[in-house]
């Protein structure tokens, strides 16, 4: 993980001092709400239904145990003892007072944490997949490039007042766990014919009211050109993105209206003027950033050590092992996913006590490092296989070892109308009811990998468009209704889901999900044909018929 140097620390401290002054000027009335709102958004401070919400960035989903302890402290000292991990690898606190925010931010800054640009019309938290640096199928660690970009786009004087928000994601694996195709800029690291590593650059992905998948405008961009090329894209967007209509202000609309080729040409033209200038990345600059990335001094261990072989005799442990533990690129090690989706719990939430306990376990078993995934689960990235059984017992004790990772009860949900002022309907209780219906893990396992994504409004923070089953909350005559889509996917074969049929009321949505699951069992060609592949093969109609037959 990246260790701040003096520059990084100073910048965050200066940002906190500036925000403290801005809050004081707001409370005194010197700044109007209209003048203050963009400023507080640029520090991740929202006003929600009940209180202010603080969104803290976890750059590319990597967190130290020290930082996790600070999050637990903030939850306890300034909030109500818990936090929510989001679909963009951030964490949210729901009850913070504006008056106390400067102090909370001062505390966070001591651990190198901040809310810079987690909201507002600027570049948001740059995400990658939570297995960056440890996955066997990765060609190199994308986080170094994410960090280079993060710095370049932080408090960038030209790009802090964009037409709208801007989201960037990177992947360096053939299997895209970062959903790069639904980002404003998606970057896929890959090797060209000559064996060089570079980026496929995709632009204009995004969900919300008008979902689009990103279009490739540069099949292979050398590493050297990353900053200058992104600068050219941003400059295009800043100047020509629409500012007359907030529903048409994302870059996806600009790309769509200009056409991909014209957009690519315009970027190319701008880029030609700057590509050999000061933003060209040379070895020294990259090496400097890379030098501050710390990697564990892994022990030399063998796969399947005797402790693990013996532990497999425990059936409960074996179930968890098969579900939540994944291969690591270093022999004798494993990646452990911590499910934050207990039955009946709000998806993606953790208490301060859990955060502290996880920090402790990270120190003991994972070289002090934790990962946050966009599925709203956590991971311990560097676990020795011989420690898996002991770790599991501890995780089980604190309630983060539900073996439902990637199953139907591993639901991704936005906070919805229970918290969010933009929402039309609730999402958390819908998620909870579904986890109750599928509490039987044999049933859940029989259904296989099945991602449900729930959004409480069209802003799609739950990413429902790319859910295998997507659920969108809408309002009809003052009542909560839910629109269902199926067949979406977020990976390298990304697709938007297809609407199943008319929206159903709150009381029926869990029944609909059960009917879809039943239909899948009936329709699948083989037990190992994934739900999303069955939908691809047979289409939506067979599902629609079964679900709506009695409705």
């Amino acid at each position, binding site marked *: 993980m990246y260790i701040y140097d003096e520059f990084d620390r100073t910048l965050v401290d200066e940002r906190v001092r500036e925000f403290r002054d801005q809050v004081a000027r707001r409370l005194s009335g010197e700044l109007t709400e209209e003048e203050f709102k963009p400023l507080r958004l640029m520090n991740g401070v929202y006003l929600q239904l009940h209180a202010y919400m603080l969104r803290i960035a976890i750059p590319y989903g990597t967190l130290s145990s020290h930082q996790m302890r600070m999050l637990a402290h903030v939850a306890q000292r300034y909030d109500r003892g818990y936090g929510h991990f989001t679909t963009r690898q951030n964490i949210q606190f729901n009850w913070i007072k504006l008056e106390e925010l400067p102090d909370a931010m001062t505390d966070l800054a001591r651990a190198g944490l901040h809310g810079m640009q987690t909201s507002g019309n600027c570049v948001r938290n740059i995400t990658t997949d939570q297995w960056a640096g440890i996955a066997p199928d990765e060609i190199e660690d994308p986080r170094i490039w994410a960090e280079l970009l993060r710095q370049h786009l932080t408090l960038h*004087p030209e790009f802090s007042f964009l037409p709208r928000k801007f989201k960037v994601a990177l992947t360096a694996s053939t299997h895209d766990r970062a959903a790069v195709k639904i980002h404003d800029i998606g970057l896929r690291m890959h090797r060209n014919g000559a064996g060089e590593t570079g980026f496929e650059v995709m632009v204009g992905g995004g969900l919300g009211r008008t979902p689009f998948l990103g279009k490739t405008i540069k099949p292979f961009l050398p590493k050297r050109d990353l900053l200058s090329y992104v600068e050219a894209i941003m400059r295009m967007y800043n100047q020509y993105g629409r500012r007359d209509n907030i529903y048409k202000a994302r870059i996806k609309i600009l790309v769509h209206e200009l056409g991909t080729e014209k957009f690519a040409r315009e970027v190319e033209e701008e880029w030609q003027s700057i590509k050999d200038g000061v933003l060209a990345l040379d070895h020294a600059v990259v090496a400097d950033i890379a030098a501050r990335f710390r990697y564990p001094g892994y022990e030399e261990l063998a796969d399947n050590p005797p402790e693990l072989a013996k532990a497999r005799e425990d059936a409960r442990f074996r179930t968890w092992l098969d579900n939540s533990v994944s291969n690591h690129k270093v022999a004798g090690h494993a990646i452990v996913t911590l499910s934050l989706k207990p039955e009946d719990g709000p998806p993606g939430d953790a208490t301060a006590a859990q955060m502290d306990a996880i920090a402790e376990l990270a120190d003991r078993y994972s070289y002090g490092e934790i990962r946050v995934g966009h599925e709203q689960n956590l991971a311990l990235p560097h676990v020795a296989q011989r420690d898996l059984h002991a770790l599991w017992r501890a995780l089980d004790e604190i309630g983060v070892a539900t073996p439902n990772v990637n199953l139907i009860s591993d639901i991704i949900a936005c906070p919805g109308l229970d918290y969010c002022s933009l929402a039309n309907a609730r999402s958390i209780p819908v998620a909870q009811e579904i986890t109750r219906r599928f509490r039987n893990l044999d049933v859940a396992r029989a259904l296989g990998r099945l991602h449900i994504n729930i959004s409480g409004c069209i802003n799609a923070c739950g990413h429902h468009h790319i859910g295998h089953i997507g659920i969108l909350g809408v309002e009809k005559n003052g009542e909560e209704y839910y629109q269902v889509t199926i067949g979406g996917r977020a990976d390298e074969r990304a697709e938007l889901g297809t609407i199943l049929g008319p929206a159903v009321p709150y009381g029926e949505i869990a029944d609909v999900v059960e009917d879809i699951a039943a239909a899948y069992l009936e329709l699948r060609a083989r037990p190992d044909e994934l739900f999303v592949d069955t939908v691809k093969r047979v289409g939506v109609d067979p599902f629609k018929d079964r679900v709506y037959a009695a409705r």
Partner: protein
Amino acid sequence: MPLVKAGHIVEDRFVRVLDDAPVPEGVAVILPAARLLADARDLVLRQAPTGVIWPNDRKVAELAPYLDWIAVVALVFPNFRDGRAYSQARLLRERHQFRGELRATGQVLRDQLLFLHRAGFDAFEVTKDADAAAFAEAVRRYSVFYQPTGDGRTSTLTARRAHGASGTAPSPSEYVAG
């Protein structure tokens, strides 16, 4: 509204001329874009300085032929959230090498002054008196800048290159329990 230049509130010697009004002789003027483009051949001969106010939805490249004699380019922030003129400013300074006065007009507030300065503006029609008075403080809020612009401030990109690979890990004792 106060004009700030070189860190101080100064008197604005430039007179705004509306679209078809006559251009006074011997007076520094700022003209609308259309006027400048139409009358450039005459305006270049003026004894007094000539400036232009350029809308934020027009390419500044159109100004390129005139930049060697235009005294002021005034760019526009119709509201402070409309950031198009930041790009225009950087292009004028860094692409077109404009060396005259680059003036920020429209809604110009304290919390954008440093961004504006970094983008190349050197004159500011600051909306609020209190913000104009606080200019010097506002542009000194930060000492660290990640990205190089044309403003001459050292960025971390260049500073780190000079240091070579370096960086110390923070000590664990930095955390103090609340």
